[in-house]
């Protein structure tokens, strides 16, 4: 049934959307493709599993998970981005990939390569609306994703920090000239990106009840595709792209089987790139709301 596929696809898409927002936000403001994002996604997912297994209460897991994402992202800023301010732009890109591999291997050493299952009593609670089965954790996830983007868009549009970030996006030297302490503001970009990534990792772990040290890689490709489909640097575009990919993926599984998933998703990516090279909401800079 079509409606049900859309509902399921939106839930899946919200995870991609959050990762895409993290990617697109750092690109829009700092012109930096941060490959540590899938690593942070995976570490938060694994940490969620480990904490729940150790009996930590879910609200505390959520808070600690978000803090972990922010902290790891801040670490990447200190070690990679700050250190390579004056290098060519591919230097931080490669550096952030090194962080992805580092995160993966640290998790492999600690927990091994197995797929880990989460036992969550509430994970299968659902409600029925107009004949559609809607999982409650999934709805909460979707609402959280949209709410987080809405909050970020409001910060970008209405606050002093947002104006400063949009000025940095257009020209860092102009921002400095106007009194923005660019070196102090840049870490906030990483912290925001880290929080979005961690939220995605938490949602994935809770909704799909399984995590592995390699869960970042597929989500990275889908997240980057979502960003491109939506339009680079555009946070609403990232949400749109993520949800579209989620729906296409779910529909492809149902109607054509699991093998068709990647053909559907990446075929769509190529089609959109061909007809709208700037993406669906194509613009620039992270501020477009």
């Amino acid at each position: 049934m079509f409606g049900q596929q859309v509902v399921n696809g939106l839930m899946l898409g919200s995870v991609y959307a959050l990762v895409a927002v993290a990617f697109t936000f750092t690109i829009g403001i700092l012109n930096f493709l941060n490959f540590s994002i899938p690593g942070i996604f995976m570490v938060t997912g694994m940490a969620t599993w480990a904490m729940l297994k150790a009996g930590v209460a879910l609200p505390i897991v959520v808070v600690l998970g978000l803090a972990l994402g922010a902290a790891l992202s801040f670490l990447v800023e200190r070690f990679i981005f700050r250190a390579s301010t004056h290098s060519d732009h591919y230097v931080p890109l490669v550096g952030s990939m090194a962080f992805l591999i580092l995160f993966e291997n640290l998790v492999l050493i600690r927990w091994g390569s197995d797929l880990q299952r989460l036992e969550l009593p509430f994970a299968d609670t659902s409600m029925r609306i107009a004949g559609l089965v809607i999982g409650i954790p999934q709805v909460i996830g979707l609402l959280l994703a949209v709410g987080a983007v809405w909050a970020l868009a409001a910060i970008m549009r209405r606050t002093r920090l947002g104006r400063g970030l949009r000025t940095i996006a257009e020209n860092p030297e102009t921002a400095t000239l106007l009194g923005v302490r660019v070196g102090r503001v840049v870490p906030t970009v990483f912290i925001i990106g880290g929080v979005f990534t961690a939220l995605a990792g938490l949602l994935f772990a809770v909704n799909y009840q399984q995590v592995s040290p390699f869960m970042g890689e597929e989500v990275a490709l889908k997240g980057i595709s979502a960003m491109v489909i939506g339009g680079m640097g555009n946070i609403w575009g990232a949400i749109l792209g993520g949800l579209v990919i989620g729906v296409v993926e779910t529909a492809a599984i149902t109607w054509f089987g699991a093998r068709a998933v990647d053909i559907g998703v990446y075929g769509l990516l190529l089609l959109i790139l061909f007809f709208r090279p700037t993406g669906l909401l194509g613009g620039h800079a992270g501020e477009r709301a």
Partner: protein
Amino acid sequence: MLLDIQGLSVRYGRIAAVRDASVNVAEGEVVAVLGANGAGKSSLLKAAIGLVTPNSGHILFAGSDATRWSTAQRLANGLVLVPEGRRIVMSLTVEENLLMGAYARRDLEAVRKEIGVIYERFPNLGERRHMLASVLSGGELQMLAIGRGALARPRLMMLDEPSLGLSPRLVQELFRHLVEINRTGLALLLVEQNTRKALGIASRAYVMELGRVVMSGTPGELLADDRLEAAYLGTGAKA
């Protein structure tokens, strides 16, 4: 002295853009810096606001050694630069650009009021306040840049070739406005190619050539000296 630049040198790799230049501005004064393209005028102002680091020399502002201050610190202490080419943020609205001028300020009530005054003085900006700055004409962009600078509440405003690219009528209006804001007690350090206009409002002027200050004096003294024209045309009148 409000601003006292002493023996300043700026290098870009092997290029010496400013060599041992000393320039000062008193409270409330209008001082002009003249010179041909490439003389080092912009580099002097960029060093004064902290966008480039001098290789030697000192920058004193209101009695404090500001040489190592960040740009944000200089702004907070009352020094502002309206840069060459205006550097308006085109992806921000007119009003957001003005708010960026007040980035370090916390007295938002007063900021709102001052923005209102700017809109009254330049109704074109007021009418377009919620449009992207990219819709503005050259003259409007320059007024926006000056308004943005004024919103930092400076004691000294440095302006780098504000008349560049403006029609004679707009240049007229620009200089009238500069005199107006100077009357409020704001000191101006004005870099200009438009020598006559600049000397018309300045009480003193410096002439730069190949990074050095080669002449200084009152407008009367400079206009009487034929080395001014030589330096302005860049034909090497050696001091």
